[in-house]
């Protein structure tokens, strides 16, 4: 249907889909990064909170023979199993150690020839407080090269870093939104100025401000969808391409890259949210300007 106010012909309207496309693309990438990071932090929290890793035969214990090392490791595991606050202690098998080292040594590396320490995965009881330094001291009495790695400290630092990056990404998204809103306000005001006569005629034949604002709203919607839909498709393709490139690297300790289906939905909602914001912005800008008319 033809609009009463011929906004589609405005020169100012032609740049808005391009601006929206650029902003939606950038917002899509920023959101994808934020979501991937959130997923990674959640995964780390899930996997590492309430656990310790005890290493036997690390620095200071490299000279031990394999049999001695296994014996000491079993002893340490037994002590850990009796220690208050520890729910379970499990010695990791060679395959599990190989899997942990795969990001650095590659799949199928021959680890038998390497003087690797043994690892014990320790699950803590809920709300247990373990002093890692004290435990290291106690275990060092029965084994060589013992180190107790408390993941909580490492995880807290990593989580803080991830949250900072997340906050920056959200800041970028907010800034992008601000630029978009400014663009929509500019286009709406230009439209109001260009079509002042038409708007006056509409007023004089009894149009309410809301009727005129709806025309601007609909116009903003069309322009945003025109720019936003292809842009989010491009952003999704970029994320998928980065994901594929990441997978080609093989297993790494980098954050999980693949987005979950809900996160994909959130990404695809970006142009819709942008359109809703543009419509509201256009409406508010037009109503505020029209309120000054006689």
């Amino acid at each position, binding site marked *: 249907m*033809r609009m*009463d106010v*011929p906004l589609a*012909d405005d020169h100012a309207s032609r740049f808005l889909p391009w601006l929206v496309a650029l902003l939606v693309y950038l917002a899509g990438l920023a959101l994808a990064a934020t979501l991937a990071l959130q997923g990674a932090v959640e995964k780390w929290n899930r996997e590492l909170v309430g656990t310790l890793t005890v290493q036997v035969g690390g620095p200071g214990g490299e000279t031990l023979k394999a049999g001695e090392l296994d014996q000491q490791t079993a002893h340490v595991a037994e002590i850990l199993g009796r220690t208050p606050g520890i729910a379970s202690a499990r010695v990791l098998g060679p395959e599990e150690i190989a899997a942990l080292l795969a990001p650095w040594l590659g799949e199928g590396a021959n680890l038998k020839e390497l003087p690797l320490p043994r690892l014990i995965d320790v699950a803590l009881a809920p709300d247990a407080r373990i002093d890692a330094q004290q435990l290291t001291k106690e275990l060092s009495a029965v084994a060589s090269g013992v180190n107790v790695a408390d993941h909580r400290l490492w995880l807290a630092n990593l989580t803080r870093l991830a949250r900072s990056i997340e906050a920056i990404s959200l800041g970028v998204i907010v800034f992008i939104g601000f630029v978009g809103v400014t663009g929509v306000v500019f286009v709406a005001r230009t439209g109001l100025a260009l079509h002042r*006569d*038409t708007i*006056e*005629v*509409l*007023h*004089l*034949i*009894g*149009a*309410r401000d809301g*009727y005129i604002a709806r025309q601007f709203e609909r116009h903003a919607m069309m322009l945003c969808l025109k720019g936003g839909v292809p842009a989010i498709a491009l952003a999704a393709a970029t994320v998928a391409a980065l994901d594929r490139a990441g997978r080609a690297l093989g297993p790494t300790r980098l954050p999980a890259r693949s987005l979950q289906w809900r996160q994909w939905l959130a990404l695809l909602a970006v142009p819709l949210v942008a359109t809703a914001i543009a419509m509201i912005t256009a409406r508010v800008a037009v109503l505020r300007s029209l*309120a000054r*008319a*006689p």
Partner: protein
Amino acid sequence: MAPGEPPILRFENVGMRYGMGPEVISDVSFELKRGSFHFVMGESGAGKSTLLKLMYLAHRPTRGIVSVFGHDMSRTPRRALPPLRRRIGVVFQDFRLLDHLSAMENVALPLRVAGSKGEQSRSHVTELMNWVGLAERMKQPPHTLSGGEQQRVAIARAVINRPSLLLADEPTGNVDDRMALRLLYLFEELNKLGTTIVIATHNEGLVARFGHPRLVIRGGTVDVVPGGAGGTG
């Protein structure tokens, strides 16, 4: 007008200036009864258009009271103006048709603005386009129509909502005498159906022929001159 019924238009000591300029009209007082027919006369620049703009609520007076359908415009909030404006049909001097719409869409505009449904409004518009003799050209954009045709589109747009008050600014300015006469007969017909009519014109011959009362603007003030002996035939 029934006794006690408020006048459709009332001006009381109205003054109007643009910005910091001098008053274009000052101390204007008169009343128009429901169903009346008036001509507004005066030299170019005398303030006819300003008077009409106050009547069709394009402006509020700088001072004094303008009351339309019993509503004092100085106290009527902006949001209450659209329903009042829908009861007023206006034929602008320069027509003010929307060039990106067809003649038919221009005529349908007041109905659309008022929220009428498509089918109902289409038959009404077609009927009116027939009435003004433009049925064949209703899909044309206004800029492809002659001045007289555009004027008839503007008139059709002004009357489509069956307004209680019809204001026309120089509606015969762009047409020959025969068409001017035809248009005035058309306004007379509307007047007989109960519409209050106010027409601003220079055409003294035409005014004399119809003999309706006149609002004569001179030196920024308005005198109401009773109707003459003119007839409508």
